[in-house]
């Protein structure tokens, strides 16, 4: 990146030496990550290594404390922003465990969030007709039954339906940076294809995607620019698509050993 350039040329996301803890426990121990528009980054790593923590901190989850480091988003200090401001500014988190909202109809939830985000971006509110048209279009992509939109958000949804619902929300909100936390977990083969194609369709030169995953399978559909391995709160290795294939074959031990060495 050129030194004195303005925000335009700055990376979309710039994480520098990020340390995060919960209570007394350090979870992230110095993360550096730079993501530019047009890129897809995959983050892999063993259970409990801190992948979701990183995703949550980017989205502003209050229970985590940043003890050191900074995060710039489009050149702005991301950590100073409220979660809803980050969302309105274009950060979207597809949750590893989508939350159930009893009694809140999915349709109404989508409408409220689309309104909130559009209002912030200075776009006019969609009429119900315009909204439904947009919804129909996006819904088709992830093959969500319109009846599901009448149900309470995620309540009684199957694991796979919840994940597809997350992708639908992403498509509706049209974010700039999408962080997908294991959106490919728990999907059958067909659903994986649907979700992956949905995400791939979202890919664009003006957007970026961070894909947290355990499986290189999804990367067959969404080819990443970079693959990072997170272990015990640090990115211990970065590489290209090949790294994911290697991990699939060999597991994590060889990296662990080379890090320890």
């Amino acid at each position: 990146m050129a030194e004195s350039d303005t925000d335009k040329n700055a990376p979309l996301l710039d994480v520098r030496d990020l340390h995060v803890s919960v209570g007394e426990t350090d979870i992230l121990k110095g993360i550096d990550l730079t993501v530019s528009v047009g890129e897809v980054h995959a983050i892999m790593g063993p259970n409990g290594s801190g992948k979701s923590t990183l995703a949550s901190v980017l989205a502003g989850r209050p229970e985590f404390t940043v003890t050191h480091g900074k995060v710039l988003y489009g050149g702005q200090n991301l950590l100073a922003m409220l979660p809803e401001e980050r969302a309105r500014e274009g950060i979207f988190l597809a949750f590893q465990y989508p939350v159930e909202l009893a009694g809140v109809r999915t349709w109404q939830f989508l409408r409220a969030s689309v309104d909130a985000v559009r209002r912030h971006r200075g776009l006019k509110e969609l009429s119900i007709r315009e909204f439904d048209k947009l919804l129909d279009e996006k819904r088709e992509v992830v093959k969500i039954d319109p009846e599901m939109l009448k149900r309470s958000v995620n309540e009684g949804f199957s694991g796979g339906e919840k994940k597809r619902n997350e992708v639908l929300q992403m498509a509706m909100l049209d974010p700039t940076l999408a962080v997908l936390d294991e959106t490919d977990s728990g999907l059958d083969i067909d659903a994986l294809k649907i979700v992956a194609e949905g995400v791939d369709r979202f890919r664009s030169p003006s957007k970026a995607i961070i894909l947290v995953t355990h499986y290189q399978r999804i990367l067959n559909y969404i080819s990443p620019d970079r693959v990072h391995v997170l272990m015990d709160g640090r990115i211990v290795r970065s590489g290209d698509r090949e790294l994911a294939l290697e991990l699939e074959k060999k597991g994590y031990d060889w990296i662990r050993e080379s890090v320890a060495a």
Partner: protein
Amino acid sequence: MTEQRVISRKTGVEDTDYKWGFELDIESDIAPRGLNEDIVRLISAKKREPEWMLEWRLKAYRHWLKLGSEEPKWANVKFPPIDYQDMIYYAAPRSQADGPKSLDEIDPEILEGFNKLGIPLEEQKKLSGVAVDAVLDSVSVATTYQEMLKKVGVIFCSMSEAVKNHPELVQKYIGSVVPYSDNFYATLNSAVFSDGSFCYVPPGVRCPIELMTYFRINEMDTGQFERTLIIADKGSYVSYLEGCTAPMRKTHQLHAAVVELVALDDAEIKYSTLQNWYPGDKDGNGGVYNFVTKRGKAQGRGSKISWTQVETGSAITWKYPSVILQGDDSVGEFYSVALVNNHQQADTGTKMTHIGKNTRSTIIAKGISAGKANNTYRGQVKIMPTANGARNFTQCDSLLIGDECGAHTVPYIEVRNPTAQLEHEATTSKVSDDQLFYLQQRGLSLEESNYMIINGFCRGIFKELPFEFAAEASQLMRVSLEGTVG
């Protein structure tokens, strides 16, 4: 359908969270403080009541004396003793001394007041599709849509008018569901009730519009003791709405109403309440004591009585809209949202008494507590020996906002018939951080997120309300929680 059916909104009063707190500047005819036989006689005389009505009042008054100002003590509410001799039992706008008038004779200040409340009474502006009986302090000031109702044979008027014009109906049914000796407050009400609404729907008539009574306390230190009586004759249907507000006062005001419903064979009464009496300030000063007896008798075979209430106001709410399921195959329903904030207290619930065969009742009660407030659901399901095949389903859900509030569920079940089937479910939940974060991550503010979760919690109840009331209800929740969430 119609556009303008919202019943209350901004009133121009600033610097306060209670937007209905203004006072009307009208001259009133006020009885001297205190309660004695003369006051009872005065009220009856003011209303030019027949002898039988006065006699009934006096019986109630004498019974009340025997109770020795012993209020019921079993409810989970606390308040300093009420001085019943320091209260005013009758206040009427002077211009209304002779009861409801035609609209062009009503004091413009009163019309303007109801306008501010969102209840226009003038012919051109009145709420479309809702006939309104407007009650100010002790008297009914106007009833709209009288002509249209008359055409289909529905009687909808103030209680005072009913006593004069339909004495046979009033005499037959008043006290038939809530006898004057029922409980302390009902007895007091029977002695001094001032006005209220009366409705009779003739056999086979489906009342073409919603009926509504809007209660408004204006005078200081007056109690409001209205009495409502609704009779649905065989095969008829009526949907009735009730809304209420009061000005902000530093002292407490007593509201002790009685509502009686009677449904004959195959008749159905749907009774909805949005209760928004002044709740008092943040420190617990002032506010209305809402001690109300509401009961319906599903008297006829296949009859149905359904109570839906959204209770957001009052310093104290003590209220148990109940159904006596007397007719075979009759149905009783109770859908409730009670929200308390700051120092408010609510002890509310229902009583379903199954007498007839194959009677069915449903109770869904949602309590929301915030601030330092306490919310108690108290419900009784009683299956009498005659009630073969009776069924009840009860669900009580509590939602807590913050750590200083409380929720309590007190179910009483009495089953004296082995064929009865009862189901009871209860849950207590908090608005979870996970839910809030999820909504915020989708761009909603913390406050919006809270309202969305709270509205979701109430959805099962709001859907029972007439359409235009539902929007109003969710608006009320918002106003009542302002500054608490987010």
